[in-house]
């Protein structure tokens, strides 16, 4: 190899090294920025990418939602909620003002669901971020379920579900998902008959008033 060719190769290698170092530095900076945003960003309600100003009413409706105490699962085919949302100091907040439940049943041939409904409304809610995933957390949850059925051990018994529940928000599907993992992640729990219960449900959500048909996101 001639001296000229060697110098040319060295110059190329230096350029590559500089590029690689720069790229790594950029990656580190970007990664750091991401971490910083996941740790400190206060998620807000947004419509078409812009933070909500004032208040809006959103409706969520689950195709199916189920609550389980070991051995007995209660499912509602129609589980709606009405949430009045706003942003306060850049953080999304809300008040759940209505939660009608319809077509509820159990997995038991002995136990039937009588009157069922949310109590002590409104329930406060807020948005939070855990490991870069946005969550909506409901506090002061209280749902009364009256069971019937002569052979059911809960016949004529009002079981009250209380506690708090956190669900993850998917901006792509504009939905909130509640399950044992999301409750654990948000350090929330629901109790009935004195013990922790499981609750599952996926709630597609959309605006109902001035932002109707606009894409809803949380970030």
């Amino acid at each position: 190899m001639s001296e000229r060719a060697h110098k040319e190769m060295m110059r190329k290698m230096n350029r590559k090294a500089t590029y690689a170092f720069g790229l790594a530095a950029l990656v580190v900076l970007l990664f750091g920025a991401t971490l910083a945003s996941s740790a400190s960003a206060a998620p807000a309600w947004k419509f078409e990418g812009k933070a909500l100003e004032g208040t809006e009413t959103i409706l969520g409706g689950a195709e199916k939602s189920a609550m389980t105490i070991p051995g007995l699962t209660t499912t509602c085919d129609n589980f709606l909620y009405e949430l009045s949302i706003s942003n306060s100091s850049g953080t999304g907040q809300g008040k759940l003002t209505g939660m009608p439940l319809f077509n509820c049943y159990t997995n038991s041939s002995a136990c039937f669901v009588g009157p069922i409904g949310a109590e002590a409304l409104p329930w406060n809610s807020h948005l939070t971020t855990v490991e870069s995933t946005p969550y909506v957390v409901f506090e002061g949850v209280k749902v009364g379920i009256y069971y019937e059925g002569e052979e059911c051990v809960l016949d004529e018994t009002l079981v009250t579900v209380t506690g708090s529940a956190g669900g993850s928000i998917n901006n792509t599907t504009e939905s909130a998902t509640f399950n044992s993992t999301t409750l654990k992640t948000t350090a929330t729990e629901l109790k009935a008959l004195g013990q922790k219960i499981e609750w599952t449900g996926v709630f597609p959500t959309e605006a109902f008033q001035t932002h109707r048909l606009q894409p809803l996101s949380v970030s």
Partner: protein
Amino acid sequence: MHMHRRRVACTALIAVALAALGFAGTAAAKLTGNYAKFAQCPYTNLEVKKCIYAITESGEVVLGSKKVPIEKPVTIQGGYGKANEESFSTFFAATNGITLSKTPQNVPGGLLGIVPEAKQPWLVKQLIKFFFENSLTGLNSTLELAKPASEIKISEKHLAEEIGIALEMPLKIHLENPFLGNNCYVGSSSSPIIWKLTTGKTSPPPPNTSIQGFGGTAEFLEEGRIVETKGTKLVDNAWSAPAATGCGGIIAFLVNPIVNSSLGTTTAGHNTAILNNTLNVASRAAVAKNNEENP
């Protein structure tokens, strides 16, 4: 004519015998699987709403200065009706009459623990000597219902929600040793010990301090017809107990004061009951159906 009368009498006797057998067959339930434990539930009584079978597996009863660990399982069984406005249900006795099993628990320290030598008058000392020579020094304590089972109150709502009184029972404690005779009791039907057990937090007078119960972990069985709750902790440390009576037979006038002195102060705030249980509750209708399906 005589033959005819004799035949009628025989037929009547056979009918009575068959009827008796029939009744016996009805009474001896053939409950199966998870329902078998409710055999003593009065499920033919339509006032009964639920059947209950509870086992106290461990715990302790502190009466004054004496602490008795619960080492042998105690059973509470029977049925209960619909809850009233205060969430309490009336209890119905077990069909075999054993609503609360009479399970003797060993009292640590035995007879000398409750009739200490230093306090024995001469006559008592001579009598106790005989019991020691014959190794009759063990002392048992047995919980018994002081009133009919209908005086028991149960609140399944309070039990589950860990608030208020979950189970109220009128009791007497039978202290058993040949020297003490057959009628040595703390509490009686006219002056019972009332336990107001909770799965929540107690508020006793001093020197006792608040203790916490636990509602347990429930699991539904038989598609929601039975609920089994494990780890239920029922507590009460605010109850009072009257003085012991009837201890020592004809020399009760000598022995009662010694027993009471050994027990120490038994007014509210000096006694504790901690019962660790597994509760099984079933719908009466489900138990009755299981019985019909297994004649």
